[in-house]
């Protein structure tokens, strides 16, 4: 249940520095990242392992505070105004992260319980979302009784059940087989469009980023923004070139000249 309407996400000079517990040295995970995401936009973030994508994800959720800079959504920050975003930001993680002691239905109900929706309405909405995701006959099943793809469907239903303004997905389909991943990706995208949610997908798969994103943000080392690509400016027939250009950008840690049109 959205508390307020969708607002742009403004990331301004974001910096996150960690101190390593073992060595005591400082590590710059994100360095001066600036990015604006319009309401209802679907943005795919690609980058190599360890480039700061997951740190950005945690900062977007509000689990951690930025060292410098800010993330502002409708005048509020996810970390500083943590409770304000209850029911407005939902997440799909790499692993399903379902609670093993709850049935599918009860897992999907969880976000509704947290925002105080009446129990009958919780059940009704959670059942409806499970049905939409093809799990009509598995509402009572526990996570261990479901396949990986089915569990991720439950996790997607859990994210959408609050009809959030902002959806965050961190490598949500990367661990699934190709067919299941493609199917779930399409479902996710269709539902995000239908709910009018702003979606940020973190992925290391370029095919996935091109297939899903309105925009692709290419992160270099310490989450520096190497390229900000509007996918609509590329014809479908050019997607292979786009893929190669992003690949070259990631490998060289600098924008590939072929990306200049965006």
């Amino acid at each position, binding site marked *: 249940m959205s508390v307020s309407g969708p607002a742009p996400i403004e990331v301004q000079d974001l910096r996150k520095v960690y101190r390593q517990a073992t060595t005591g040295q400082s590590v710059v995970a994100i360095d001066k990242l600036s990015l604006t995401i319009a309401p209802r936009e679907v943005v795919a973030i690609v980058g190599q392992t360890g480039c700061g994508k997951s740190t950005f994800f945690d900062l977007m959720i509000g689990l951690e505070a930025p060292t410098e800079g800010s993330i502002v959504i409708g005048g509020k920050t996810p970390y500083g105004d943590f409770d304000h975003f209850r029911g407005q930001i*939902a997440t799909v993680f790499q*692993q399903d992260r379902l609670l093993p*002691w709850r049935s599918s239905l009860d897992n999907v109900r969880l976000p509704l*319980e*947290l925002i105080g929706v009446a129990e009958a309405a919780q059940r009704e909405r959670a059942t409806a979302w499970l049905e939409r995701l093809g799990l009509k006959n598995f509402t009572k099943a526990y996570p261990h009784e479901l396949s990986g793809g089915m569990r991720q469907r439950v996790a997607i239903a859990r994210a959408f059940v609050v009809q959030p303004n902002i959806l965050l997905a961190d490598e949500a389909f990367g661990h699934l087989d190709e067919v299941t991943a493609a199917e779930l990706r399409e479902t996710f995208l269709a539902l995000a469009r239908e709910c009018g949610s702003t979606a940020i997908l973190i992925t290391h798969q370029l095919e996935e980023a091109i297939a899903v994103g309105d925009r692709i943000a290419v992160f270099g080392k310490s989450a520096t923004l190497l390229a900000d690509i509007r996918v609509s400016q590329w014809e479908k027939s050019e997607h292979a070139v786009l893929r190669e250009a992003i690949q070259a950008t990631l490998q060289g840690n600098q924008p590939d000249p072929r990306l200049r049109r965006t």
Partner: protein
Amino acid sequence: MSLEERHASAVEFQFPRQTLVSILIFAIAWEALSRLAPYLGIPPFAIPSFITIGKSLIQITPIDVAVTLARVIAALIVSFVLGLALAMAMYSSHALENYLHPMVRLLMAVPVVSWILFAVLWFRGVEFRIVFVLFAVCGPVFLVDSLDAMRAVPRELRGMMRSFRPTTLQYFAKLMLPAIVPSIITSWKINLSLAIRVVTIAELVGAVTGIGHQLAVAQELFSVADVFAWTLVLVVLLFLLEAVVIRIEHRLLRWRA
């Protein structure tokens, strides 16, 4: 096999054949030794026959059993509630944990007999003494087990839960407490046998009711049959309480594969 059938088969009753056989062997050996005692130079009262023990069993006073049972359950509930509440507070506050953890470790190192002596010297009321001793012995076990279990809740689940922005109460109610149920059940099993033994010793020393007191009376009367009968009651009581905990365990953990 349907899901329901699979759940049902997980809690299927199994006839304890081996257990019964081993008990039967012990009983036969005891009875044989009892009959042979006069020929072996053992005094007749030392190994009473099952007929004598049976007579003692008939004379068991239910009120003493009920009193001991009530003391054990009440003290365990108090220990559990306070231990869990402290564990939650310590999990939430590192500063509190840093202060309390060494103290808890220290309390756990104190022998049961010392607690009983402290209780006798410090307090007048028998009931309060017993609850105090049981709390001092069982409380830290609940606390340490709960705290360790909370720390072991996977980071991924904690991150997922926090991403939905629960209140502190919701965080514990929806994630932490259900996640630590298996550890809590184990703590209850450990503390049940601990509490039965501790309450018996405490009653033996400073009570005028309960099974421990009756054991003290049996000792004064040199009645091995009475000691055997009351011990049997204690063992059966422990098994019954454990059976209840196992029943609750099956109910609460039916989600497990």
